[in-house]
């Protein structure tokens, strides 16, 4: 045992080498800017010197929540965002689950449908927005013709242009595009359930409906939670679709305004409105807090939920 001695370990430079690139990019481009944004919400621009910011405590928040002109816009955007989220939660996710349940039976035909049904999800918001803008356009009249097939052309209205229907229409367009994500996640969870767990029920002659709700659904509850959390985070962070469909002014008359478009308008300015970096940072911080609440609720819930290992 001549060569065997305890050596003093040298400093692990290789670990630094492996971690440094990812950590530097992530910290410099994500962590620090995020902290910078959050802290900027406590400042306001010095009117005398635009490059200098003055600490103003919570007054940006006070302005956002109570200002005569601005508060209604902020609360409106928040309300629209909640509606936007609820429509995704209760239209997109149940349809996604239904499609996943059907697909999970397997077979060549269903593999084909799986590929087809996911197609809208890979398209960009820009395309999706313009496709639907054209289809719903009264000038083209395509939707009117389609409704006419069911002799319902009387129902046609310029849904994107009416205050009462614009937000729901935008949400449903987003549902059309995004249905693939919950579908594929539910599908993955469903085909992961081992057959042994279902066989006993099948032998007992339970019908598929009962098997789904009594056995399969409880087993995929973790995925239901994950999909809900993803829907929540994605929706309170949404911007692209509304911006492309309705513009930064989220028309008509701000009826489709959500947090993302409000942030964009505030931060960059729009028409008569001057750009306001610090108020923009305040709105981003509100989005951050809302999303954080969602994520924390999800994580607490996840800790308490039994996950079945099979």
């Amino acid at each position, binding site marked *: 045992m001549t060569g065997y001695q305890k050596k003093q370990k040298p400093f*692990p430079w*290789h*670990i630094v080498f*492996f*971690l440094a*690139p*990812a*950590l530097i*990019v*992530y910290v*410099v*481009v*994500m*962590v*620090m*800017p*995020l*902290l*910078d*944004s959050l802290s*900027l919400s406590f400042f306001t621009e010095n009117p005398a010197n635009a490059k200098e910011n003055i600490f103003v405590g919570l007054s940006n928040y006070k302005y956002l929540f109570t200002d005569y002109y601005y508060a209604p816009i902020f609360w409106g955007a928040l309300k629209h965002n909640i509606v936007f989220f609820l429509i995704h939660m209760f239209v997109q996710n149940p*349809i996604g689950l239904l*499609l996943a349940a*059907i697909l999970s039976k397997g077979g060549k*035909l*269903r593999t084909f*449908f799986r*590929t*087809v*049904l996911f*197609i*809208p999800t890979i*398209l*960009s*918001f*820009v*395309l999706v927005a*313009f*496709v639907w803008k*054209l*289809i719903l356009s009264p000038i*083209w009249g*395509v939707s009117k013709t389609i409704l006419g097939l069911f002799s319902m052309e009387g129902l046609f209205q310029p849904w994107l242009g009416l205050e009462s229907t614009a937000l729901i229409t935008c949400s449903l367009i987003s549902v*059309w595009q995004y*249905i693939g994500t919950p579908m*594929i*996640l539910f*599908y*993955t969870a469903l*085909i992961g359930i081992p057959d042994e767990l279902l066989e006993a029920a099948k032998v007992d002659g339970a019908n*598929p409906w009962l098997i789904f709700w009594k056995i399969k659904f409880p087993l995929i509850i973790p995925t239901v939670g994950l999909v809900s959390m993803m829907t929540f*985070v994605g929706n309170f*962070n949404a911007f692209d679709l509304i*911006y*492309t469909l309705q513009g930064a002014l989220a028309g008509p008359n701000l009826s489709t305004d959500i947090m993302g478009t409000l*942030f964009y308008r505030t931060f960059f300015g729009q028409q008569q409105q001057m750009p306001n970096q610090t108020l923009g940072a305040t709105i*981003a911080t509100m989005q*951050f807090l809302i*999303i*954080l609440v969602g994520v924390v609720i999800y994580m607490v819930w996840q800790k308490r939920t039994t996950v079945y290992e099979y």
Partner: protein
Amino acid sequence: MEKTISSEKYQGPSFFFQLRKWAGEAVPVLILIFWSVIALFPIYLILVNAFKERKAIFRLPFAIPSGETFSLVGFETVSARSHFGTYFTNSIVVTVMALVLTLLFGTMASFALAQYKFKGSTLISLVFSIGIMIPIRLATVGILRLMVNLRLTNTLWALIIVYIAQSLPMTIFILSSFMRQVPQELIQAARVDGASEYHIYWLILPLIRPALGAIGIFTMIPIWNDLWWPLILAPSIDTATVTLGSQQFLGQYMTDWNAILASMTMSIVPILIFYLIFSKQMIKSITSGALKS
């Protein structure tokens, strides 16, 4: 006579049973067909009408182009008036660079996090995992200020760097679990043979290739489709990506139906082809658990 009645009686429940069984088979398939029509019809309308002359777009919107209605005037307008060539190059440069660097940095970091025990490794993993759930867009104000200070606005580098930061948390999260599955005996054997840690990293890479493919595809699509960062960090004509470029073009030419339909077709077709080639692998990689914790 009696016989037929009794046999009819006998067939009664069996017929309903058959019907129910048939419905149980057919209804799900009908639902799939119904939703597939909803999913594909809008895309069909765009692709079909892009190749028609203006009158036919309005007169026969549902028909496929015939010899009479066929026209490429929209594509001519797009190639003459927009910078689709530049946009495509920009999108490809940004996506490929971001993808390659994400995979490089991601494999290095996850190798270190999975293979070595050191002070702070838990903290670093935690910091990265926060980034999975908190979207990077919330840091927009800070990122724009940073890019202005670095004089990187209206450069492709600004986009590449942000997309790397955006993709790293998920990449590291998934790759770490793969790196942990690499048999330790293999690594020990390499060490005994005198391989350096850097060499071991290089030896491990081929073992996690399936994961790299899956991550690659799932990183690419959001980057290619993103509107937010090009709009905020690099909106100039020279740095616009396909998504931003088509958004601006469509906004400007909203009344030129031939041109917008053509430009939409040009944006849909590449991603559609890419998807149809890789869809099997994509869905296989999700369902095989490559993207699950």
